């Protein structure tokens, strides 16, 4: 194989070649940076490239391998990390003017684990400012393009991470998911996006948006890669008080499993009006693949699903309003040049440092938590959250997994949806439920509509990730949509 094309392989293929001594980590990195040089001008997935750092890391991996050291799956694998995940000594901007020059003095727990495993950071990826948005258009710095059509959005908020993997600018990428910020861009870019059970992956070092929803997850090129990466991300961490003290085992064991007898529910509310006809057809075709493999499929109803979006907006904004109070221009982050007293320092720094979408979320939260609205908005949303969670728990007594579209449509044109508020708002409808209930969910490519990728969402009960991986792998082996690549 031409070493120049190494970038197009999967993580496990590259791992095997490095283990067999066919290629070095440096050669793999050369290939990925070569690819970045060739396509990044068009995609703009990255906010920061970490070339010096990456080559140093690759050299150290190669030395260790030459010494005969036995290295893990991720050793020497180039990866991308969303720019709201702290990386010691490397800028972490949240795509906000507020943190434009912020350099964290510590590593996020996941980044530390990935570094220990030998994965190599090639760069930090673009996102919607503070992960608030679903198109990566609210980034204060650049507009990331969808690798399948450069006039379209990659989705968001982890749009840079999804686009980087889809364009072969990294073998995998880490992102965060508060209301669908991994699964939705994965769907629009034709890669896998995985959000774990709430508490399964430590958020220490993730810049907080909405703490009862935020989870870190991964983008991967195929299901096997996804299982491998999750093995390194999962695990208890005392530095995140919501971390679950639970052993999840080896996710690779869920690969190549028979899905005969698996029970699949199709919640009809997710196939309702608002879902594009072709997208719906593709998901149902995907479900048929699983049915042919022996799964039992039934339509079900989740009547509370329709309340998910307002519940999500009210609670997540309330939490954001509290979390983002820390950005006051005093200790770190942006400080306004002009102010006459401390009050003005706060107001001017925040007003100039935050973009419009972030201001909206902070204010919606401030409003929902105000004494006048606490009971009618925040508290009621918490109550409906319980109803939604209970309804899903009941569904999972009967079904192993639920399948829905990840997103109602294919990727929209840049600028198109940011003006259409209702469409923007409704776009979260399929994904937010998993965050509301704290359950794991994956988006997996299931076909193309008008030449653009469509993703199928698989959800399971909390801690049921093995079922998701099992079904997804069976589906992938019988469809191979992941093998399609955008022409760049």
């Amino acid at each position, binding site marked *: 194989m031409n070493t120049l094309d190494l970038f197009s392989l999967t993580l496990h293929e590259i791992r095997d070649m490095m283990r067999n001594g066919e290629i070095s980590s440096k050669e793999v990195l050369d290939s990925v940076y070569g690819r970045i040089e060739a396509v990044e001008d068009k995609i703009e997935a990255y906010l920061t490239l970490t070339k010096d750092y990456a080559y140093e890391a690759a050299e150290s991996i190669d030395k260790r391998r030459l010494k005969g050291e036995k290295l893990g799956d991720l050793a020497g694998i180039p990866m991308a990390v969303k720019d709201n995940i702290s990386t010691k000594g490397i800028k972490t901007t949240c795509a906000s003017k507020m943190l434009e020059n912020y*350099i964290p003095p510590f590593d996020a727990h996941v980044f530390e684990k990935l570094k220990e495993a030998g994965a190599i950071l090639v760069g930090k990826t673009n996102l919607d400012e503070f992960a608030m948005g679903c198109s990566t258009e609210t980034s204060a710095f650049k507009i990331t393009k969808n690798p399948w059509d450069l006039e379209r959005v990659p989705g968001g908020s982890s749009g840079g991470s999804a686009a980087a993997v889809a364009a072969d600018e990294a073998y995998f990428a880490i992102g965060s998911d508060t209301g669908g910020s991994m699964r939705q861009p994965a769907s629009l870019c034709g890669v896998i996006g995985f959000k774990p059970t709430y508490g399964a992956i430590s958020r220490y070092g993730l810049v907080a948006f909405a703490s009862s929803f935020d989870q870190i997850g991964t983008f991967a090129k195929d299901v096997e890669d996804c299982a491998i990466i999750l093995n390194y991300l999962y695990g208890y961490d005392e530095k995140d008080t919501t971390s679950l003290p639970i052993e999840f085992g080896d996710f690779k064991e869920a690969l190549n499993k028979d899905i005969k007898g698996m029970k699949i529910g199709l919640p009809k509310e997710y196939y309702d009006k608002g879902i594009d006809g072709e997208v719906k057809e593709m998901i149902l075709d995907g479900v048929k693949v699983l049915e042919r493999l022996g799964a039992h499929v039934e339509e079900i109803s989740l009547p509370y699903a329709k309340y998910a979006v*307002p519940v999500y907006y009210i609670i997540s904004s309330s939490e954001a309003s509290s979390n983002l109070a820390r950005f006051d221009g005093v*200790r770190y982050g942006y400080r306004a040049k002009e102010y006459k007293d401390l009050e003005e320092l706060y107001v001017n720094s925040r007003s100039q440092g935050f973009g419009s979408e972030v*201001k909206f979320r902070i204010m919606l939260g401030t*409003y929902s938590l105000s004494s006048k609205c606490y009971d009618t908005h925040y508290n009621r949303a918490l*109550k409906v959250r319980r109803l939604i969670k209970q309804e899903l728990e009941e569904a999972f007594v009967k079904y192993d997994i639920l399948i829905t579209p990840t997103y109602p449509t294919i990727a929209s044109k840049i600028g198109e949806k940011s003006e259409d508020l209702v469409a923007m708002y409704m776009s979260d409808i399929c994904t937010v439920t998993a965050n509301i209930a*704290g359950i794991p969910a994956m988006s997996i490519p299931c076909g193309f509509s008008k030449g653009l990728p469509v993703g199928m969402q698989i959800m399971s009960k909390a801690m049921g990730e093995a079922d998701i991986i099992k079904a997804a792998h069976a589906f992938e082996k019988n469809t191979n949509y992941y093998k399609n690549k955008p022409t760049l």
Partner: protein
Amino acid sequence: MIEKKELLNIASLAKLKLSEEDEEKITKKFNLVLNYARMFDELDLENVEPLVNINNLSNVMREDEPMESYDRETLLANAPEKLYGCIKVSKIIE
């Protein structure tokens, strides 16, 4: 519908000042969400407990033991203005 006066009051509580453009955009978004939130009216929520803690974990404590932390220089590296090894702000006591 949210009144302009109320919107500006919330902005001030959140320590934000809005440009005219922001004000218009944010008002529209507010009204959209508040409108959707009216859907809750159709539910009987009287006997439903609010869900605050998703995994029912209670407070996580650790032993109160001193351990290594960051040095002053590291922590001040990101401060926008510094003076005598401290973060500088404007005078707060006249």
